[in-house]
């Protein structure tokens, strides 16, 4: 009986010691590829937002200064400017965190860098999308597509609220990770 326990113990020990690093490595590789996908999507969105801003400038020039929608347009341009800055800064932060994954000392730290990079890429993506939506509003005014203004305005407000939730949760993730390593 005890001999069987010894053998079973030995097998489990070998399995456990052998499998644990492999599982951790697989998890790390998986999260690394997820991060790359998230950063790539954010980069594309930021590039599109950059092109949208140029288009928005041209559209803005077409709108008469005495347009009754000017206060709305000012609000949209402000939202676009704020979110553009957030998108660019967050993309930079996401890339910095992703760069630290490989050099992290242990799988847990690497996983936390990966998580931070992924969430930051999400912040960048949502900021860039809002820029595009604000420019779509300006374009709709410039091209007299007034029937879609209400829809765009409502969608943009919902998106700004959701984007602030992304940033709130990014701050939360960052705080919880900091607390984890300061104990």
């Amino acid at each position: 009986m005890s001999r069987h326990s010894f053998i079973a113990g030995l097998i489990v020990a070998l399995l456990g010691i052998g499998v644990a690093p492999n599982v951790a490595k697989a998890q790390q590789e998986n999260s690394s590829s997820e991060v790359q996908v998230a950063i790539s999507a954010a980069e594309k969105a930021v590039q599109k937002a950059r092109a949208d801003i140029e288009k928005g400038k041209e559209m803005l020039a077409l709108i008469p200064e005495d347009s009754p929608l000017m206060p709305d347009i000012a609000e949209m341009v402000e939202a676009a400017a704020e979110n553009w800055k957030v998108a660019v800064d967050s993309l930079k932060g996401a890339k910095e965190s992703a760069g630290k994954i490989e050099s992290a000392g242990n799988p847990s730290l690497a996983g936390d860098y990966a998580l931070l990079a992924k969430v930051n890429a999400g912040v960048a993506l949502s900021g860039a999308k809002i820029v595009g939506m604000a420019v779509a509003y300006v374009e709709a005014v410039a091209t007299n597509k007034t029937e879609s203004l209400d829809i765009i305005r409502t969608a943009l407000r919902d998106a700004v609220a959701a984007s602030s939730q992304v940033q709130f949760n990014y701050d939360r993730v960052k705080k919880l990770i900091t607390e984890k390593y300061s104990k």
Partner: protein
Amino acid sequence: MNGNSILKAGVLGMASLLFAVHASGADKIAASAILAELSTISVEAQANVVDAAATGNLEAMAEANRRADAVDAAVAAGQAASTAMDRAIEANDQDAADAAEDGVKDALQMAKDGLNGIVPKVSATKAWKASKKNTGGGPADPYDAPNMYDIPSKTKVQQGVAQKSWGTLWSSGAIGSGLESGGFADREATPE
């Protein structure tokens, strides 16, 4: 290496194996990251609504709105599950925390599905039943009688007594259908 040390190594190995397969229980950091991802998907869904509105295609707009609604529902479910997880962690209820964490993950999948147009269809019967349910101040008529079968009771006996009393009251009421009812519904026709 004696028998005891081999056994100890075995236990250690098993522990590391379990740790590798299922690293710790409910994870607040991962849950917050998922909530962030849910909100990002919500922004994407709203951006799709704007894109559809810019085309002026009514069908595309309806579809984009349908998807955005599905994503919003998933976000709400994720936030509710995350709150439940935080409460369970505070109460040291590991099982409830794990279940709530699964709820957060399910919400993420729901949101991804919703963004891709995979929205679960609610059958007409279920939708009708849901619209008729008295939720106590919700969409139903506030003068609707409470449904005894929907009221949670502390014990089965208590529930049985309450339901029987309700049945008796119903059948004797003005619109009840029982023999002792003074009402009009489902009664035998009188000779005249």
